[in-house]
């Protein structure tokens, strides 16, 4: 509001002696600018807060930032991981500090400009009330933000930093010190043939898996929803309940059950169906291609019910007028499906369907629980059915190649982020958001 008034040519400068620049410059020491604006209590509070923060944190922060550069100097005594995490915490604190510092200067500048235009400094009571009103949303967000910083943002940053170190099985703290290696891990990933081949294999399988499994899931759901939605079909409630069961039963139990059913030697699918018909069993768990086929089938089993439930809801809401009009025009059943049912269903559920794709892209559970990413493939660290996220898990907890795992995580993160950006820019909520 102050800015608007200032641009107004009719505004009369009431206090020409009160200089906003001086207020801003004085705020280099937090609180002084506010004191210049005659808001002494606010100024004092700010000064004390900043002074307390600086006294308490300056040692930790300077040590932390220094440690972030050196990653420890005395082998066997300094733990590089501690240095790294202290360094990241220091960075986070520094960011907060700078943000508040800038806000403090802006605040002094804004108040000074308003005073120049004849604004009366509110008394203490009003001042408190204003502070409470503007500060309230921050109070609400604060606890969540704090938790978010330490549980989500800190770990993600840690991972990003790890990608630029040489932290692996042979060079692991606290025995050894870590060193910064720049982009070496990424260069290795793309130039050393074993890494490159593995990466290409895993990435292409991840994309195929995401596309095929999710599309089949949606296609089956659409097919079943259309069949069951037919008015001639009875027992709809029972059918719906059974169809939703795979969604309702916890996935980790069903995946383990399936991995027993698909077992090469004793699994019921081999002993009960395949062997009697074809004479020999199928190596579901020892051949990569068969494992992939099995995993896709299981995911379709697990994933179609939710989409089915969505589609059924949409189908019931399509007005009968559409179909009646089509009947009058003599449209065939396929035409009605293509031009009425399909567009309606897809339009209403598109964002949710896209979420199904992104869910499967990172669907760790099914890959890991079914065959632990296996079967093992010679000459690479990823198994035959590993997708990116399960490969990262394997690299981290089985091969202890932390640096490579982190580098691949970053690539995965970039893929996810660009996808998310693309999708959310189109989403309705952000367009509506702009109207406020």
């Amino acid at each position, binding site marked *: 509001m102050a800015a608007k008034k200032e641009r107004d040519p009719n505004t009369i400068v009431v206090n020409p002696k009160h200089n906003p620049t001086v207020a801003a410059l004085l705020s280099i020491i937090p609180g002084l600018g506010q004191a210049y604006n005659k808001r002494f209590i606010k100024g004092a509070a700010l000064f004390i807060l900043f002074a307390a923060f600086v006294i308490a944190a300056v040692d930790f922060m300077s040590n932390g930032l220094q440690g972030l550069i050196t990653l420890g100097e005395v082998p066997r005594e300094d733990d590089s*991981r*501690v240095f790294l*995490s202290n360094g990241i915490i220091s960075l986070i604190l520094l960011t907060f500090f700078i943000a508040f510092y800038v806000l403090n200067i802006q605040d002094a500048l804004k108040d000074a400009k308003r005073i120049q235009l004849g604004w009366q400094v509110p008394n203490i009571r009003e001042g408190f009330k204003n502070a409470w009103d503007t500060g*309230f*949303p921050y109070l*609400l*967000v604060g606890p969540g*933000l704090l*938790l*978010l910083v*330490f*549980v*989500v943002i*800190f*770990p*993600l940053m*840690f*991972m990003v930093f*790890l990608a630029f170190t040489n932290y692996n099985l042979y060079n692991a703290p606290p025995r050894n010190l870590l060193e910064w290696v720049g982009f070496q891990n990424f260069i290795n990933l793309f130039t050393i043939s074993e890494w490159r081949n593995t990466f290409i294999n895993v990435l292409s399988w991840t994309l195929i898996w995401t596309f095929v499994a999710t599309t089949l899931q949606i296609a089956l759901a659409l097919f*079943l929803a259309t*069949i*069951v939605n037919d008015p*001639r*079909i009875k027992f709809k409630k029972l059918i719906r309940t*059974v*169809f939703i*069961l*795979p969604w*309702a*039963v*916890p996935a*980790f*139990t069903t995946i*383990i059950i399936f991995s*027993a059913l698909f077992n090469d030697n*004793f699994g*019921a699918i081999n002993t009960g169906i395949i062997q009697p018909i074809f004479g020999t069993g199928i190596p579901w768990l020892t051949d990569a291609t068969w494992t992939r086929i099995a995993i896709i089938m299981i995911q379709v089993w697990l994933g179609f019910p*939710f989409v089915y*439930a*969505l589609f059924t809801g949409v189908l019931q809401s399509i007005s009968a007028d559409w179909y009646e009009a089509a*009947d009058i025009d003599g449209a*065939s*059943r396929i035409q009605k499906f293509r031009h009425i049912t399909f567009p309606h269903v897809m339009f209403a559920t598109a964002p*949710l369907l896209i979420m199904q794709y*992104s869910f499967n892209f*990172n669907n*760790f*559970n099914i890959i890991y*629980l079914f065959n632990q990413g296996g079967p093992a493939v010679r000459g690479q660290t990823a198994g035959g059915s590993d997708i990116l*996220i399960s490969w*990262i898990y394997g690299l*981290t*907890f089985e091969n202890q190649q*932390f640096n490579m795992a982190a580098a691949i995580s970053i690539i995965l*993160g970039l893929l*996810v982020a660009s996808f*998310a950006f693309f999708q959310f820019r189109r989403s*309705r909520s952000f367009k509506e*958001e702009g109207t*406020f």
Partner: protein
Amino acid sequence: MAAKTKKPLDRKLVNRLELIGSYSVIAIMFVIILYPLAWALGISLNTGTGVYGASIIPDNITFEHYAWLFTDPRSNYLLWYRNTLIVAFSVTIIATFMIALTAYAFSRYRFKGRKNGLYAFLLLQMFPVLMAMVAIYILLNTVNLLDSLLGLIIIYVGGAIPMNAFLVKGYFDTIPRELDESAKIDGAGHFRIFFQIMLPLAKPILAVVALFNFMAPFMDFILPRIVLRSPENFTLALGLFNFVNDQFANNFTRFAAGAILIAVPIALVYLFLQRYLISGLTSGATKG
């Protein structure tokens, strides 16, 4: 319809054939869906711990594996149940409250950093917590919360915020602003408006969020696997996974019994509340 021009008898026949086709597709799906579940139930009633001799229709039905889970001194099943309940209740209460606070701020207040905060939430909910597992492990290790339920609870709560805050914010947005504005004119403070007007109105979505958060610890095994080390701290999902992880075939009947015992209550909850759960998920994605 294609049958329109044909004789009435033909139409009846076509009609019947179509219905037979539809019903047989549905019947096949019933078999595909129910067989694995029935198989697990059958296996859990077999004698012996191995899966080799076990069959879906056991010769003599026994509940010994269920009894073993509860009574055998080597079984930690009840302990795991207790742990899971502790985690689930704590996460539900803390996370739902924090999510409501955050969502309320983003829905009703215009403050500096709001827009960027929304973008950050959207982005963060796309990243699986799993991606940062190394760091979570090391972080919990340095603050001595590794192998403790508290560490697990904190991670769950933190991970739940970006995801669900958006869902609840979308719901808050649909509540007319006139309600809280008139309350403000009547002199109600920020907290009063939040607790006495907004929270009661948002009950349906909060119930959905609470339910999701309550269910998560029952079904997630990977985060507990990273955080928890000693068997007496395990949650149900992790404990059951370890049953089959060590010697897959040799503990399978016990695993099946334990799995049935958690699958049945969870499946019942889902089946009874499916409409609410699905509408909750749907509104989050389209309106949020």
